[in-house]
């Protein structure tokens, strides 16, 4: 049903075949790893810069401003200029800081977010690793980042940083539950933890439509909880600019600060991509029932466009939250999780399991 002309499997297959015919299989596999790694590195850096630019533009328009518009056309090169500035800045050593952990922390944060990208299905046939426990892997890897944040706060030898890191720890441990439960509802519906299977299961309709109101509720819970997990406003207590100046990365400067900054935006991209994949059909085009003509037209849009369109829609939602709401207080943040989101998602999971059992979804 879905057109194969946009499938990347022909391209990747051709590369694989070519490499295998030219050299030994182990060397070909190794080279493929290197190629994938380099491609992801470039993708990671460019996407991170673009997301920073996007956020600045979105918040500017929300706030009746123009936003960056001086460097390059529409200010597109602004973040690259910022990156160059950050690269040239001095890395200030902190007296009495735990040097090893202090330098390690940004790398842990950035590696955690980098690893999660591997499992994302970007388009038809474009996925680095198709684990059979894909969701589980992404959840596990993305929550590694909190270790980096805790280390950063602890090793900075600064009171502001420590408070920010502790807040972040409490926050991420709590919200992991809701994220997990809301993702579980889709796992129940699709019957698989493999991301490619989940995407395939949405060929005739996205889960957010097929799963009635319940899937919508778990999507909302997922959005809230994952915003909290990525330390973004209104849950940016770990940074809490007006209270803790910059929270856990108060003492970082130069490229080490840029790592935290980049990781924050990439984490946002990852949760948005997961949300898009699970709830909004991933790279699947929008299909409505038996409107055959409409469905055919939709099929002509490449799958990679669908994936990024949906992901950026979710990213926009997250940005919209951030630039609208005041920040929560730490006890209210935990209240929200334990008193509201967790019971609701538990009930939701039970109900979803029930409708999945009865086959009451479309």
């Amino acid at each position: 049903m879905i057109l194969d002309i946009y499938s990347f499997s022909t391209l990747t297959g051709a590369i694989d075949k070519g490499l295998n015919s030219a050299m030994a299989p182990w060397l070909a596999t190794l080279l493929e790893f290197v190629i994938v790694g380099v491609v992801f590195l470039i993708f990671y850096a460019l996407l991170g810069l673009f997301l920073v630019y996007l956020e600045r533009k979105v918040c500017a328009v929300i706030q009746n401003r123009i936003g960056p518009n001086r460097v390059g056309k529409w200010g597109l090169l602004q973040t690259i200029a910022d990156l160059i500035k950050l690269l040239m800045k001095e890395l200030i050593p902190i007296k009495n800081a735990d040097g090893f952990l202090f330098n390690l922390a940004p790398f842990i944060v950035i590696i955690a977010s980098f690893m999660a990208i591997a499992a994302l299905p970007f388009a038809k046939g474009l996925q680095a690793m198709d684990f059979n426990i894909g969701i589980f892997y992404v959840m596990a890897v993305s929550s590694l980042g909190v270790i980096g944040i805790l280390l950063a706060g602890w090793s900075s030898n600064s009171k502001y940083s420590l408070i920010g890191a502790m807040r972040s720890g409490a926050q991420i441990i709590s919200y992991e539950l809701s994220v997990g439960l809301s993702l579980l509802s889709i796992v129940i519906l699709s019957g698989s933890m493999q991301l490619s299977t989940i995407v395939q299961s949405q060929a005739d309709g996205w889960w957010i439509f097929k799963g009635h109101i319940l899937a919508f509720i778990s999507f909302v819970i997922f959005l809230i909880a994952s915003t909290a997990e990525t330390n973004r406003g209104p849950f940016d207590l770990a940074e809490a600019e007006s209270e803790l100046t910059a929270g856990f990365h108060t003492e970082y400067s130069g490229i080490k600060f840029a790592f935290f900054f980049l990781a924050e935006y990439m984490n946002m991209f990852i949760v948005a991509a997961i949300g898009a994949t699970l709830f909004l059909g991933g790279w699947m085009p929008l299909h409505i029932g038996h409107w055959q003509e409409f469905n055919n037209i939709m099929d002509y849009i490449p799958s990679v466009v669908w994936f990024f369109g949906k992901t950026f829609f979710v990213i926009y939602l997250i940005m919209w939250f951030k630039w609208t709401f005041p920040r929560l207080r730490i006890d209210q943040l935990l209240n929200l999780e334990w008193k509201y989101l967790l019971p609701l998602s538990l009930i939701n999971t039970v109900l979803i399991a029930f409708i999945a059992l009865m086959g009451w979804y479309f």
Partner: protein
Amino acid sequence: MNSVFKYFADIVSGVRSLCAGMRVTGKYFLSPGEIVTEQYPENRATLKMEDRFKGEVIMTHDENNQHNCNGCGICELNCPNGAIEIITKKEADETGKLVRSIDKHVYHLSMCTFCELCIKSCPSNALEWGQNFEHAVFDRSKLTKVLNQPGSTIKKKEAKS
């Protein structure tokens, strides 16, 4: 049961209030016509300050390079910050009498607080507000200005007794 009802009512009212807030920001996001930013160096040609804008103190000169200042020093006296220094000289007029006249009207822009007392107190209305606001310089000494233009003379009072 009441508390259960209140629990859900809280959620609904909370979500509704959040939606109201998001509607406001969403409305502005979708109406880029509301953008109020002025692009300053680009709009230099069209940017016009108000007539009364207090940019700096200037001394009005007419087309003959003549001004009204006779160097009486009242502005210097009235300035609360010592931003004005009057340097006078004695000059012979056409009858050969030595008359006090202004040599340099020194104005320290860096010390001026734009209180307008010099302009209001000037008995011969020699001073005025200038609308120039681009005062940024790299050297503080450049903010010390001489208000009377070089070669300027005092305007003659027309046929006054």
